[in-house]
């Protein structure tokens, strides 16, 4: 049970405080309610590029000053961009609590004064190299591009990836930076969570000191496109990729109810039963029998109308791609036979994992920001596990039957050999 205090500043910034004096460290975490889903046509990848620009200085902090200040006191800092949000986090020895508050407030309030074309050009190069390193020069690196474009219609905000296309990254301008900042980087579109070794009243007053004077802006515009789509693709859609990959691999995905709905919890149970741990069905029936090198299941906590149920299965060099797909699909189709014992194991596994993750202030602060953003109430983190515990076997089975059937499935299949660019649709 985490002790939580929640406030909203006059400018709309939501504040979550979770003091815990065990270790003299403090984690500060901000969630801005903006991610790749908010990007407009021709500007894919911009939310992420913008995140890079947030480290290029602000009115009172020089380029790279954020990292320099934080590293100088023995802290760590970073940020990530995802579909629905962008998070920024700093962990420092607790007597330096003011430092991340000052740095984060300076870029929330006074970022644009420090923006130049030269910095944008530099970070466009850095991000293009990030794309090359993590996607273009990596076996299977384009799997999410292929999976998302197959799973979501062009009008859905999850149709394109977080990293974006090279052309769009190259096209970003300083004007885009100004407009994006004015539209999305507002105190009324953010949550700040502070976790760790501090006194709650003291921290509250420090947050107010640094953030109070930042003016709010108009509510951000609605997410472009159509978020609500059926939890079905109509049929199993496939893309076969003959590429320079070492082993055959399948990324299989389905559209399922989002993180913010009650129907998410049975989904989490099913995902854990099928593909998490060494007593899971995938491990027991596919890996132990050598039909797969590995097979795992992931339910992403996305919120925009729908989320992704994802299976990643890798074969051995001589595994046929159809055999691999049939084996995985058979286990998914068999989710209707989950047992009491399996469901119980999935729940206790999730409970212990959560306890383990909560040991780190960085994770604790991030989860609190997540619950505050998605539910408007960070304290929901404390009773989230109880929502998982009440999932019945019948509900888990029913969830599997309703959402994981072949008419709600896409399959991106990597087949070793062939030239890296060949790409032909199958079925």
């Amino acid at each position, binding site marked *: 049970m985490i002790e939580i205090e929640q406030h909203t500043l006059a400018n709309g910034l939501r504040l979550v405080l979770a003091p815990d004096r065990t270790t*003299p460290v403090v984690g500060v975490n901000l969630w801005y309610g903006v991610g790749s889903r908010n990007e407009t046509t021709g500007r894919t990848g911009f939310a992420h590029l913008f995140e890079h620009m947030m480290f290029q200085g602000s009115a009172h902090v020089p380029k790279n000053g954020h990292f320099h200040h934080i590293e100088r006191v*023995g802290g760590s800092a970073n940020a990530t961009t995802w579909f629905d949000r962008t998070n920024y986090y700093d962990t420092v020895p607790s007597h330096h609590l*003011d430092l991340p*508050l000052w740095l984060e407030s300076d870029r929330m309030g006074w970022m644009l004064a420090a923006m130049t074309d030269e910095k944008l050009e530099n970070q466009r*190069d850095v991000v293009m190299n990030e794309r090359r390193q993590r996607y273009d020069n990596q076996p299977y690196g384009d799997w999410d591009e292929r999976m998302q474009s197959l799973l979501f219609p062009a009008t859905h905000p999850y149709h394109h990836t977080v990293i974006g296309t090279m052309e769009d990254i190259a096209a970003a301008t300083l004007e885009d930076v100004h407009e994006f900042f004015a539209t999305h980087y507002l105190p009324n579109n953010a949550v700040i969570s502070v976790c760790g070794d501090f006194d709650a009243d003291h921290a509250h007053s420090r947050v107010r000191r640094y953030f109070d004077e930042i003016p709010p802006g108009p509510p951000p515009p609605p997410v472009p496109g159509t978020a609500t789509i059926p939890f079905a693709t109509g049929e199993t859609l496939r893309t076969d990729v003959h590429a320079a990959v070492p082993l055959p691999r399948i990324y299989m995905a389905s559209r399922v109810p989002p993180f913010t709905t009650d129907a998410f919890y049975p989904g989490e149970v099913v995902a854990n039963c099928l593909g998490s741990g060494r007593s899971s069905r995938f491990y027991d029936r596919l890996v132990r029998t050598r039909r797969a090198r590995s097979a795992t299941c992931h339910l992403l906590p996305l919120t925009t109308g729908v989320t992704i149920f994802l299976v990643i299965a*890798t074969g051995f060099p001589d595994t046929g791609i159809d055999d691999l797909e049939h084996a995985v699909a058979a286990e998914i189709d068999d989710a209707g036979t989950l047992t009491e*014992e399996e469901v119980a194991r999935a729940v206790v596994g999730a409970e212990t994992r959560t306890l383990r993750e909560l040991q780190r202030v960085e994770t604790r602060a991030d989860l609190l920001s997540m619950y505050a953003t998605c539910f408007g109430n960070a304290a929901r983190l404390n009773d989230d596990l109880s929502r998982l515990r009440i999932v019945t076997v019948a509900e888990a089975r029913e969830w599997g039957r309703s959402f994981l059937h072949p008419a709600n499935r896409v399959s991106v299949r990597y087949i070793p050999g062939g030239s890296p660019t060949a790409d032909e649709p199958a079925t």
Partner: protein
Amino acid sequence: MSAGRSPPQVGAIRPYEFPTIDRRRLSNGMDVRVVSQDTVPIVTAMVVLRAGETAVAAGDSGLAVLTADALEGGTSRFSSTELARALEDVGASFGAATGWDSTTVAVSCHAEHLARAVPLLAEMIRRPAFEEAEFGRYRQQRLATAVQRRMNPSALAVDAHARFVFANGATYGRPLGGIEASLARLGADDARAFAARHYGPAEAAGVIVGNLDPAEAVAVLEEGLGGWQRRVEALPEPSARPRSRKRAVHVVNRPGSVQSQIRVGHVGVDRAVEDYFATIVLNLILGGSFSSRLNLNLRERHGFTYGVTSSFAVRRGPGPFAVSTAVDSAVTAAAVTEIFREIEGIVAAGPNRDEVETARNYLAGVFPLRLETTGQIASRIAGMIVYGLGDDYYRRYRDRVGRVTRADVAAAARRHIRPAELCTVVVGDAGEVAGPLEKLDIGPVHVHDEIGPEAGG
């Protein structure tokens, strides 16, 4: 500018001590270290075995890793599935990890299940079945991993750099996970023999960290491992002989690559190196942090890369010193030039005072940040055991970091980095990058289509 817009004042520092380690012995003499914390009800129990890949003969590369993999493949009493269920039924996660110098077998669970999890951990270590069919599965998985490493540009660069930095036959010249030729012929009997030679209580240690009662924790370990008797063989010394004392460039051709994976370095230092603290400060300044010289140059000034790092891999023997990055193919030679410039610069002139102060503060500050979880603390204690660090090692850590001077770091740079011996490995499109690399004064350029287990240089 309002009052809030100038850098803040610093509050009073709060003390932090590495947790107290309670040292015990089991009735068979096995070393046990317990840390009791009144925090989240999670415990980590770990058995540290001095049975890393260094313990393996050159022809059996991969045997230590495979033996450890196979520990969860069933025991004389439980099948692999039964073992997994018994642990996962109570939410425990478990696994074995093998490095050059040790194998650790660990379980992490809710504190109330410690008495159920530890006996299973002991069972895996004392009575592994090493059944042939199940062992074959782990072998097949490791072989698949070796195939993956060959086609993954960054893994290939790491393996190729080790291969070209160290001499043929040197321990550290091979990949940790084993070469395919030896993996392919290792069997369950080899694993059984390896465990018989290297898994034993006299050289092992138990580590338990978390929200627990020390007496109870020791009692549980005693029940599982107190009756374990076995003598183990002495470990061979790792060989870290360099391939050459001259500069050389090796391009591993990967046609069509849009990026070059670059590694630049040579044989580094071992864990017992006298000026260890000056060396870690040196590495932070050169390439061990975001604000390092290499990162500010290659990423933030030139935009050549998403990131660049340097590292000294410290082991019982000297592992590689390496600068690592991935750059747009077109700027490969330019990036290598800047890497050499930074390496030569820090050797010639040392760091400046501000850099040393920043690095010292960083190390002192991040110390508690990396000791938040039971797993992190257990790993640190395992390191103390494997490398024979004194009981007060982490208590004195911040003091020792704080005493490192500019002159110490400059001396460490001159002693441990040798620009005349740098070996450069580039995994990329040879047609595009080899020509420009030949124009640099960094040694002869060799182009390879693949890296055999004993490729020449």
